[in-house]
């Protein structure tokens, strides 16, 4: 037998056997869940997940994006077990389409919108609030894309509430999600931006910006819902993680990032 044939047979044997060899290894590390979460959770949920992992040994894999974008991915079969939205509508869309379990819908937090400027900005956002946007030095104002990001919709509503939509419409730039809106400000390309309070309060953002909390009456509440996905390959582990999210401990972690705990007085539906 020539060397070449030996080599090619070896290669074929490897190709046939290799997938079989790798299966047991994948199974042994199976205690994991895939979580898709709204971009405003990017810091808070990492802390929650790290805590949960330490406690249970279940690996929580996180992916962040605009709630609308994630919804669309789940509708198209993305391997997700739990979906944290930044609103209630997207989870309801998934439930209506049969992709999520309606019985598991839970309002885990209420988000807050803030107007954020870089630390070294001359704008006195803490005291003047929305009025700083009329300053001539503000050329670009970043918001999340209202087409698929709830924080973008909240920002549009707030601008309208203060009668600024017409005046400032031309200065708006859209981030793919609320994290990118924050990043546009952080990189100094936008002079102000509407971001999640969770971004302004994240440890990584300390000393990088100043903010003003947009009053709650200026935009519809950012009720944020979590739901279990129907085609989840890990339903038990996912349900257990959702149970943890309902504990006071998890709620406390979210509060530290500026989320309001859900008011249990009024029920969903």
């Amino acid at each position, binding site marked *: 037998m020539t060397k070449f044939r030996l080599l090619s047979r070896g290669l074929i044997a490897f190709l046939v056997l290799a997938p079989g060899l790798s299966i047991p290894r994948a199974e042994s590390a199976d205690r994991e869940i895939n979580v898709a979460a709204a971009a405003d959770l990017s810091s808070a949920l990492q802390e929650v997940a790290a805590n949960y992992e330490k406690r249970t040994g279940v690996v929580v894999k996180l992916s962040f994006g*605009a709630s*609308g*974008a994630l*919804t*669309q991915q789940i*509708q198209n079969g993305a391997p997700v077990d739990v979906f944290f939205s930044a609103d209630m509508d997207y989870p309801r869309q998934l439930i209506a389409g049969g992709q999520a379990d309606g019985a598991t819908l839970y309002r885990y937090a209420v988000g807050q919108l803030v107007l954020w400027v870089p630390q070294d900005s001359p704008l006195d956002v803490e005291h003047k609030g929305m009025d700083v946007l009329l300053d001539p030095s503000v*050329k*670009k104002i*970043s918001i999340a*894309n209202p*087409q*698929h990001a709830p924080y973008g919709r909240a920002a549009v509503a707030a601008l309208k509430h203060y009668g600024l939509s017409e005046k400032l419409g031309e200065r*708006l*730039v*859209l*981030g*793919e999600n609320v994290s990118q809106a924050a990043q*546009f400000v952080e*990189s*100094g*390309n*936008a002079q102000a931006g509407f971001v999640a309070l969770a971004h302004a309060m994240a440890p990584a953002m300390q000393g990088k910006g100043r903010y003003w909390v947009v009053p709650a009456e200026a935009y519809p509440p950012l009720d944020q819902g979590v739901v279990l996905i129907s085609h989840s390959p890990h339903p038990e582990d996912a349900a257990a993680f959702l149970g943890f999210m309902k504990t006071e401990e998890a709620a406390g972690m979210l509060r530290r990032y500026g989320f309001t705990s859900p008011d249990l007085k009024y029920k969903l539906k």
Partner: protein
Amino acid sequence: MAIDWQAFRLTIELAVVVSAILVVVGLPLAYWIAFSRRRWKFLVEALVALPIVLPPTVLGFYVLVALGSRSPLGRWWQAWTGHTLAFTFTGLVIGSILYSLPFAVQPFAASFSSVDRKLLAASATLGASPLRTFFRIVVPLSVHGLVAGVALAFAHTMGEFGVVLMVGGNIPGVTRTVSIGIYDQVQASNYASANAMALLLLVFCFGVLTLVYGLHRRTLHQATVNREVWAMGPVK
């Protein structure tokens, strides 16, 4: 089913401007790469090729940071013009030039290198200036590479996504290109619009490339005929 015509106009405009600038910038750069004997030439070649391997998000991120008010370049531009470069058409043009640079320069340089050096020497001994030699000898002999470079730069800019997503800010009529528009429609589950725009982009790009390569084939054929006539020698 809404087709964002504004986005199409903008994208074509962007691709035309970027291709034109890449011809102006790319020709001398490619000439230098093809004919220079500098020892550190390979560094420039590697630098030019970098956008091929870099993810567009990396490129877009660097461009965004470079254009921002934290960078000297961004500050200088802001002091000079009074506004920032990110989220403007000019900003997109800068990002796209960097992104498509190798797709123009590499075919240019490859075709320059394949020109017979003896012809250049002959042109020089006949008293032609380097510039005259370039336009009368080098360019006509490497026209297929030039066409390929321009077509690639154009097509590459038409289909650009990552860089625009990072530095564009999705402003209708200013920075919302077709690829971003399609992405938005998909994210919002408007598949009908996404489908219509995607199909239109596909047909348009195919049409442009067919036209370019079709014309190119004809000129090549013409060149072959000319050469054959020439080879027969002067008519007596």
